[in-house]
């Protein structure tokens, strides 16, 4: 019972701190929002488009780019601005329809559409698509030149007819379909990838940085006074562990429920997701206990906690997806609890798994929790009884 009181004090101390509220509750949600907005959903390369021409053909070309489902088009007025943005990666590629586009076509010359690509792979990636659009437009004007050259119709009329023919039964189509099982799972919500990573990152980060609170308790002599009361050392240790665990659980539940409500994140099988969260909170509590008993300076523990929290999260796949890690680094990543927890959520969210399908992940997290909690309570017991 006394253990519960100690736990409650720990939670109250955390909730009273405005900056903790920000880092524990507000910032994780902010990050899920920003990451989802920037990287979530289907990626469409951004094409910057300048239409310097004022004729109907230039407009038709520009329209082909704008209506291309593969691209997200952004209009520019100025091709110098566009070039700079292509170079800086603000847009992936640029297309400039020249001022004399219609004039060149009408006079039988070659109209040159500018393609702006960075000197890297993106040139290869996108040029082919723009080139296909140019070739398709070119086909219409070639046909019109043949027809008007034969004196069968005027150029503009022939272009109109050629467009109808190209769009009609004589046109050539490609029917595209896709097959295979997606790496990231299909029908994934915009925020489904970022939410579990951030849940894991922040629960561990808060637990490790929160070790400063435990050090403060010791430094201010609160622990010693607790020991002097008729409270068993076991109760005190249980209470401190409970405090770290409760804080981790409160944060974890907040992020899980908040992400589900605000961003419509589907966590998959709720029982299994709950088990993962409890285990993450236990591992975090163990890590916090260990750090809080090994360090004696709360500022140092806070800084090391933030660094360790961010570093382990990066290493464990919570900042850059494990899927793109080199093979060796994937193995190293699984020395962190983060990678196991992430694998667990991946299975639940993307593959629709249940408790049975995440047994290895549960086993690994139990092992992390057992070792860290044992070490943490052992060290803290030693510190308190000396």
């Amino acid at each position, binding site marked *: 019972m006394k253990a519960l009181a100690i736990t409650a004090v720990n939670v109250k101390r955390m909730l009273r701190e405005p900056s903790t509220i920000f880092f524990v509750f507000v910032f994780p949600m*902010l990050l899920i929002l920003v990451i989802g907005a920037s990287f979530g959903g289907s990626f469409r390369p951004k094409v910057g488009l300048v239409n310097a021409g004022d004729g109907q053909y230039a407009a038709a070309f520009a329209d082909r780019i704008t209506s291309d489902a593969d691209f997200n088009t952004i209009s520019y007025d100025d091709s110098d601005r566009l070039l700079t943005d292509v170079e800086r990666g*603000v847009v*992936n590629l*640029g297309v400039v329809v020249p001022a004399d586009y219609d004039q060149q076509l009408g006079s039988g010359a070659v109209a040159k559409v500018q393609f702006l*690509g960075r000197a890297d792979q993106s040139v290869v990636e996108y040029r082919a*698509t723009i080139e*296909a659009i140019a070739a398709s437009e070119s086909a219409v004007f070639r046909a019109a030149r043949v027809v008007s050259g034969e004196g069968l119709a005027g150029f503009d009329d022939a272009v109109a007819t050629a467009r109808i023919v190209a769009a009609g039964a004589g046109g050539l189509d490609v029917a595209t379909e896709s097959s295979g099982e997606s790496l990231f799972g299909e029908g994934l919500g915009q925020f489904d990838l970022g939410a579990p990573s951030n849940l894991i990152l922040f629960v561990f980060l808060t637990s490790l940085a929160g070790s400063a609170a435990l050090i403060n308790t010791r430094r201010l002599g609160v622990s010693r006074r607790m020991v002097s009361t008729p409270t068993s050392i076991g109760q005190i240790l249980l209470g401190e562990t409970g405090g770290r665990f409760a804080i981790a659980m409160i944060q974890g539940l907040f992020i899980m429920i908040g992400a589900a409500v605000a961003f419509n994140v589907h966590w998959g099988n709720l029982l299994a997701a709950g088990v993962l969260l409890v285990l993450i909170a236990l591992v975090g509590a163990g890590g916090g206990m260990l750090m809080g008993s090994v360090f004696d300076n709360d500022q140092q523990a806070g800084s090391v906690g933030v660094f360790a929290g961010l570093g382990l999260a990066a290493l464990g796949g919570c900042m850059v997806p494990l899927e793109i890690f080199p093979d060796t680094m994937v193995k190293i990543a699984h020395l962190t609890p983060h990678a196991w927890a992430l694998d667990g959520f991946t299975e639940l969210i993307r593959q629709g798994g249940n408790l049975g399908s995440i047994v290895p992940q549960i086993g690994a997290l139990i092992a992390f929790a057992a070792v860290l909690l044992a070490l943490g309570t052992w060290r803290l017991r030693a510190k308190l009884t000396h």
Partner: protein
Amino acid sequence: MRAAIIIALKDLSQRLRDKSAILMGIVAPLGLAFIFAAIIPDATASSFDIHVGVVDSDGGEISASFINDVLPSVEAQGLLTVTKYDDVDQALTDVENGDEDAVYIFPAGYSASVQSGAGGTVRMVRNVDSTIGGQIAKAVLDGYLSEVEAVTVSVGTAMVDGARDAPAVRALAMETPAAVVLADTEASNRTLDSTTFFAAGMAVFFLFFTVQFGVSSLLEERLNGTLPRLLGAPINRWSIIGGKAITSFVLGLVSMVVLAVGTTLLIGANWGNPVAVAILMVAGVLAALGIMAMVAVVAKTPEQAANWQSIIAVVLGLLGGTFFPLSQGPRLLAALSKLTPHAWFMQGLGDISSGAGLSAVITPTLAMLAFFVVTLGLAIWFGRERVLAL
């Protein structure tokens, strides 16, 4: 000035002793830059290799020309690796497993149908994860089909407009050159490679935590009761402020320089022209100093200052694109990004990494100096009574 330097030296030696500045200014950013360099595969090393399969159930002129002329020439450019399949099912299995990024399937009777003017449809199946590969594969086919179409559309249009001799029109159309072509303007690459991006991103992110040690120590001096003693000494009050500012500036600049040199030597980061980098660093350190001083002045206690500074540093770092580039994100975020010194620092670095001259740092430097001037002005305005009139 002498008094300011003595105060700064005292503060600096104190910071070196408690190691927190070294941890925040050097160990943490360097460690994270190492981790990012290790976990992100080198984009230039992984070859850009798209595998496509092709099944020719048609056996006609149009499919043959694509398979024997177009695909080999694209393959020669190193863009595609082509495999010919006899069996549609085998091709479909391979694309499903991801062995092929995409397969083209020309149906039986395709060429005949196209040549008769009835058109035709090529089936293309792409692997679900091969977004770019599938897009390129489709573009290659589309480009070729447009060539074919130029002829069939010419014939079709001529027939509509009353021509009689289809073979003659066909011959004429084949001789007519392309009317629209692409002309390449090669843009230089001003984006940072991932190793340099994370080295610089972490450096500027942690810079804001490093400079706070100096400006916030004024609050500590007040709490510890050493500030009245300083004020009682026969030195100008501005010397005290100056000393704290020098401490922040030196801590920030030293950490940035150590990080730039360290990441260059150890993980091959490419920061670019040292003079330009140095200018950006000085401006960046000043901007960080101004912002952190402003927060410190508004706060009541050292804890409160540290808490608010952490929040500001983290939010600005996130918006400034130090963990991931926001310039490619939604336009609103990209615009918000420009309200942080971080974004200007990263943009300036990107520009000089592409070999742009010293003039490329002018705008980012001015932007960062504007942050410095405005925030320092606000800090002095808010702090003129609170801090000095003790």
